[in-house]
């Protein structure tokens, strides 16, 4: 039997647990040291991967995935410009852009800026409004040195409606909600970081009518405000839905604040539309380079629960592959890089972790538009991926599931697989494509968000 308090209560062990807790609170503290330790620790694994994985040429684009991605592009384009024809002045043409990155967290814990796959020079003649369908999403960032505007070749930035725009002030939007009694006009402005919704209503035309609002969910649309100092906006664009927040009452809540839930969740937006004067002859538009693909060799290794499989990736160069980069073969995505060092990386199957993903669901029914989803991978079984949508919406249709905009290294439009809704839970169940040892590629985009 052991005697002595130090042996039964080793201070060093408890001190280490405390230090680990600190490292979880501030993860960047320990990551550099951990990176070097992992580099040394993985030396035998990398050697094994180099010996076992047979070098092969990168296969050509998988035809099914590529064809599906084309269909997605066409239907996404159609949905992006739908329902807006009568709301904008004539003589404009749409420019559909993909989102490549998102900005820092702002009001209501949501990102307030998007970066697009077009340059500042390309969008010089575009109007400042940014839409998707009939929804107003935000405004093109002004070319203002005080805001740190980038050069003409840099990706263009969109300030969403709830962007605070330091040094310039927010772009307040005159809008209106149709209540059962009257049309109530007000101004929507960015809410606070701790608020539940990103837009707050202010300057109500009829404060008494506003205080009598008793339910949420009414659609909020822009109105034309004569002499708007910030510039006239087209009337009728969808801003979002009204949210009444207040003390619970006997019959209806007593409003303290009135907020607006934006029409689209900024974390799920994968494409937006800019508008420019119609050009007589369409000139080929120079586009930003899409994410590059670096060839890697993959070796699957077993992993203890709760993980089931881990992939060791070895690259031909000593470049450090970025965390979060998509592991692809052609236009299909298989995994995500989770840890990396010079010339190697460790990847996990896509959707197995609890990360929140921006996804695009292309329904089988051709008349339905693509659905932008924000979903988290949940455990089901080892043979299927399962995604649970964050937003409470109705039952989702079956269709093909693609990645949405998940940062510069995981671009939108990569095929995940065919998704079928689970009857009981409403989750999307996907049978993943089989993975074999051999040649894959890792997407590497250009970091644009500061």
């Amino acid at each position, binding site marked *: *039997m052991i005697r002595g308090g130090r042996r039964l209560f080793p201070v060093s062990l408890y*001190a280490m647990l405390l230090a680990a807790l600190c490292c979880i609170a501030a993860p960047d503290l320990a990551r550099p040291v*951990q990176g070097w330790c992992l580099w040394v620790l993985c030396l035998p694994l990398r050697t094994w991967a180099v010996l076992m994985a047979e070098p092969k040429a990168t296969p050509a684009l998988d035809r099914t995935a590529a064809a599906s991605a084309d269909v997605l592009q066409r239907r996404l384009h159609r949905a992006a410009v739908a329902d807006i024809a009568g709301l904008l002045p004539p003589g404009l043409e749409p420019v559909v852009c993909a989102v490549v990155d998102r900005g820092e967290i702002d009001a209501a814990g949501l990102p307030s800026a998007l970066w697009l796959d077009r340059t500042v020079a390309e969008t010089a003649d575009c109007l400042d409004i940014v839409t998707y369908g009939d929804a107003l999403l935000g405004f093109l960032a002004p070319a203002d040195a005080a805001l740190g505007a980038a050069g003409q070749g840099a990706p263009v930035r969109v300030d969403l409606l709830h962007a605070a725009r330091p040094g310039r002030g927010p772009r307040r939007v005159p809008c209106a909600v149709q209540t059962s009694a009257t049309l109530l006009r007000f101004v929507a402005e960015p809410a606070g970081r701790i608020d539940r919704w990103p837009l707050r209503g202010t300057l109500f035309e009829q404060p008494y009518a506003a205080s009598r609002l008793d339910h949420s969910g009414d659609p909020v649309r822009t109105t034309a405000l004569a002499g708007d100092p910030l510039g006239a906006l087209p009337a009728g664009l969808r801003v979002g839905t009204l949210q009444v927040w207040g003390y619970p009452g006997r019959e209806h809540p007593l409003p303290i604040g009135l907020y607006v839930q934006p029409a689209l969740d900024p974390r799920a937006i994968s494409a937006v539309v800019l508008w420019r004067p119609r050009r007589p002859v369409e000139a080929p538009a120079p586009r930003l380079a899409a994410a590059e693909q670096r060839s890697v060799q993959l070796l699957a290794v077993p992993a203890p*629960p*709760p993980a089931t499989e881990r992939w060791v990736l070895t690259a031909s160069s000593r470049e450090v592959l970025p965390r979060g980069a998509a592991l692809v073969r052609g236009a299909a995505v298989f995994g995500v890089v989770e840890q990396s060092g010079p010339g190697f990386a460790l990847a996990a199957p896509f959707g197995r972790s609890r990360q*929140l993903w921006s996804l695009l669901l292309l329904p089988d029914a051709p008349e339905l538009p693509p659905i932008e989803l924000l979903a988290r991978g*949940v455990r089901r079984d080892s043979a299927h991926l399962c995604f649970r949508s964050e937003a409470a919406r109705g039952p989702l249709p079956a269709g093909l599931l693609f990645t949405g905009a998940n940062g510069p290294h995981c671009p939108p439009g990569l095929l995940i697989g065919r998704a079928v809704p689970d009857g009981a839970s409403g989750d999307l169940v996907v049978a993943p494509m089989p993975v074999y040892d051999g040649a894959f590629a890792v997407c590497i985009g250009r970091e644009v968000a500061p």
Partner: protein
Amino acid sequence: VIAWLLWFFLSLPLFLLDGWLVQEVWPVPSLTFALCMFLGLYARPSALPGLLLCAALARSVLVGGDAALHVLILGMPVSALVPLRLVFYRRHLLWQCTAASFLAVTVPKATAFLGRFAEAVPDAPPVSWSQILWAACAVPPATWVLRSIPPLSLFRESAE
């Protein structure tokens, strides 16, 4: 030093073997639980932080998440077992089975709870009674193997 180097480099193959065993042989990560039992009941107290750190680094490679997270996932059940050395007299088999069942419940629970703070860690499935029984049967012999062969035998407590 050689013992430490051996443990640093062999901890990763240990978890690889554990993953292979779970896929091919039995349904519980017996070697993970056996390692926790060794650390909790048999290891030299002064060596515990180093052993735990190497194990956490290796587990973070295969499961995902930072090493600090795995220090807590493995370290919390271990820190609960260490004071019980006082009552685990002569390491009776019944006590070992009880400790194995305890680990079969707490390690997945700790993974599920602490995994909420790291998106990279997959969702842990709930533990079933059959898995607890499996752990009670398989972990004591696995612990015996671990504490009998290097490198962990070099960190065994001398009073054992």
